[in-house]
């Protein structure tokens, strides 16, 4: 075992440790478990299932539909749509939830009429249904970009060939979609969808506000309400089981995907022309996700901003923005470095242990941030008792926590492009007796510049939006835009909260711009 392999295993285990500490505690018995199983578990599981199913269906329709039109068709405004469709990604679910929070209040007169004339029970049912619907719509419209991006990338790689062959066979557009595009992009859809599901499960603030008892809510209720960590961890195990089954399905379906049907010539991407009468329809269709996922919340925040009264001299909003950018940059750089290094080691030395064990490091993304926080606190406590030092409360601790949660975000793009672009080249470098450091810096780094940049940008956006981990693990006097927004919303200062919310979105803009440009160029 050389030092590179050893280092990779060490880092992997370090990142896996908090997750291990969560899983390890699963079979602790607790007095309240029977109570939870009897009264709550079914409710938690069903409401989680409703939300996840609804969001899955809707975000798939939106993501796949828009990707299909924007990537494979030619019509006016297509180029603009192509990138504004990614924008909803910048809006954290909790901010979208608050921006949409009083939509139900608008319906109050109708409910009041309903309540009096039809009945309380019926009204409650309708209302419950509407709440689920709103939450599903809300999540779908801000999370669909994960599906959109992944399907678009897959279409850019293989869509050209499919469409060309289909057109020469005289297939109509809707048949091309049903018979060719849908089956061939299935792995991409599932990959994007699994991210959507994980983000949905990660949410606490939005479902809490709308009064939906998902598993995530249940975890907190057991932990905080019953002071019962064991039950909280047990519920987490249900959540993790759920996510793992999704991940495994993804792996099986993705395993069938073949990379060798890549067809390069992007310059001559044939697009299906849209007929004149349909242009308007198509445009509206692709514009709607942008309206609901981005424009409405964004404009809402802007109008709140007009009402807000920020005293800029007093406000440390500049400092907070600086903190956010600073921590997001450090986190994204370190995470990409780690993902890059471990993938390089895995690819270069092809050590069996590293190959198997490195998968452990990316489990964190499937676990809600707040549960990861439990793991980190547990780890902190172990380290504290054995070595008498604290890992939390410093920027390092926070970055470490982000690493546990977001390594997978950087991992996927780096792993797949390294597999595609560097596998035989690394072998060549080895047999030419070049040192591994030379291969790393002179070959892999320059070749993978773009995927690395994209990975870093996505992590950047994710960290800038991150709330639960930051909230509990941050150092003294340290606020990010996300925690500050949360703080203000907690005080019901919606107007005031608009500025930090908008800033989260705005600092993600350049990242979105680069992601769009680079994903297009690269393929």
């Amino acid at each position, binding site marked *: 075992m050389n030092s590179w392999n050893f280092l990779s295993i060490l880092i992997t285990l370090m990142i896996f440790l908090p997750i291990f500490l969560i899983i390890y505690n699963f079979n602790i018995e607790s007095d309240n478990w029977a109570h939870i199983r009897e009264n709550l578990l079914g409710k938690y599981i069903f409401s989680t299932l409703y939300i996840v199913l609804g969001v899955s269906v809707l975000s798939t329709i939106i993501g796949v539909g828009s990707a299909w039109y924007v990537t494979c068709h030619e019509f006016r405004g297509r180029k603009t749509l192509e990138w504004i469709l990614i924008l909803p990604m910048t809006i954290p679910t909790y901010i979208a939830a608050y921006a949409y929070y009083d939509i139900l209040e608008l319906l109050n007169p109708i409910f009041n009429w309903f309540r009096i004339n039809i009945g309380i029970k019926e009204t409650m049912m309708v209302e419950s249904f509407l709440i689920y619907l709103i939450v599903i719509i809300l999540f779908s419209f801000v999370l669909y970009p994960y599906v959109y991006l992944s399907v678009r990338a897959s279409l850019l790689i293989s869509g050209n060939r499919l469409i060309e062959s289909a057109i020469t066979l005289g297939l109509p557009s809707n048949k091309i979609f049903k018979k060719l595009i849908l089956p061939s992009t299935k792995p991409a859809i599932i990959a994007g969808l699994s991210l959507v599901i994980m983000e949905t499960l990660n949410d606490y603030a939005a479902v809490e506000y709308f009064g939906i008892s998902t598993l995530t809510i249940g975890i907190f209720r057991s932990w905080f309400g019953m002071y019962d960590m064991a039950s909280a961890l047990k519920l987490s195990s249900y959540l993790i089981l759920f996510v793992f089954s999704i991940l495994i399905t993804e792996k099986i379906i993705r395993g069938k995907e073949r990379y060798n049907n890549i067809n390069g010539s992007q310059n001559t991407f044939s697009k299906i022309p849209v007929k004149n009468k349909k242009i308007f329809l198509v445009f509206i269709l692709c514009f709607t996700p942008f309206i609901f996922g981005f424009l409405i919340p964004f404009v809402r925040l802007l109008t709140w901003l007009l009402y807000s009264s920020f005293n800029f001299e007093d406000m440390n909003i500049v400092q907070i923005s600086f903190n956010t950018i600073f921590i997001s940059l450090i986190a994204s750089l370190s995470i990409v470095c780690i993902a890059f290094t471990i993938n390089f080691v895995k690819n270069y*030395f092809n050590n069996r242990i590293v190959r198997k064990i490195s998968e452990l490091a990316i489990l964190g993304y499937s676990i809600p941030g707040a549960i990861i926080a439990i793991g980190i606190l547990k780890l902190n406590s172990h380290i504290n008792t054995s070595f008498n030092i604290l890992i939390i409360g410093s920027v390092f601790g926070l970055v470490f926590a982000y690493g546990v949660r977001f390594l997978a975000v950087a991992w996927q793009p780096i792993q797949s492009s390294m597999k595609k672009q560097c596998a035989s080249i690394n072998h*060549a470098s080895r047999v030419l*007796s070049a040192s*591994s450091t030379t291969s790393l810096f*002179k070959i892999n780094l320059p070749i993978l510049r773009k995927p690395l940049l994209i990975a870093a940008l996505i992590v950047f956006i994710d960290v800038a939006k991150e709330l639960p981990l930051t909230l509990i693990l941050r150092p003294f006097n340290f606020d990010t835009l996300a925690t500050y927004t949360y703080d203000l919303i907690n005080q019901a200062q919606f107007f005031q909260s608009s500025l930090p919310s908008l800033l989260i979105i705005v600092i993600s803009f350049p990242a979105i711009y680069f992601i769009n440009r680079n994903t297009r160029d690269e393929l």
Partner: protein
Amino acid sequence: MVEFENIVKYYGKQRVLNGLSLSIGKGEIVSVVGSSGSGKTTLLRILSGLEIPELGNIILNDAVVNSSDIFIPPEKRNCSLVFQDYALFPNMTMLENIYFGEGSKNNKEIVSELIHVTKIEKILNKYPHECSGGEQQRVALVRSMATQPNVILMDEPLSNLDFHLKSKISLMISEIIRRYTTTAIIVTHDIMDAMKISDRIIVIDNGIILQDGSPKEIYDSPISKLVARYFGETNFIPLELYPESNHHIIYSNDEEPLIHVRPNQFQLFSQKNSKGKLIIEGKIKSVKNIASDLHIFLECQDIHLDIHLILSVEKDLKIGKILKVMA
């Protein structure tokens, strides 16, 4: 120079090398021939250190590089591999590629000579994607030679090349290798390519060696039907039909002994040279004119066989006609 001792390698549950042993001397140019999946590429990757066998020892230049408790990583074996897809570094110019290998900068004289011999002077400042397959192939070869390796390994060096480039480059390869007296192992699925480049051919199948010999030996006396077929369509005639034949005979465990006659060994029957020859008569089933040769299938009812033969005569041969040939 190179010793493989009882190498066993699995991919998952599939056994690709099955206790293979092989010894190659210094300066030898050896071709390893086999169908795809026969384990030939795996052999190269194991020797270069990119794969680790489950069992077996490898000795390279008098040093054990692989055994149950020793593993020398590829970068320390000085055993250069030319990849099938060339694996040039896309972010470097051809010259940078050539001088990438460890120690290549100390061999500047040899490198410039190599550049000259392979005629790649003009593309040295270009990037791989700007060059043709043949050019990339030559750069990959020079890059591997530039480190003055103990042994140079080539994985299907000719498979991606156009027909007209093949003979040119195969000549170049054997010339370069001979000039610098490097030991070479070349993997190919095309035995004709192997015959052009190497002085020893090893045929492997299912992870074991079927036959090991000079090109002539392999050509003249293939050990089995499988080896014989590497040279294209050929004829196997039961020995019992012509027990006195002096042609090459293939013995195998599960079949009767067979006489092996290549299509181009046949000629039109003529009484004066027919002594001791194998004489066959049959009805012409098909005739095809390829280049200057006539490729004929003869239906021989008396021996229940179709015979494939190639004649280089100008003669009016129609389907259905009876033809008598000898070999």
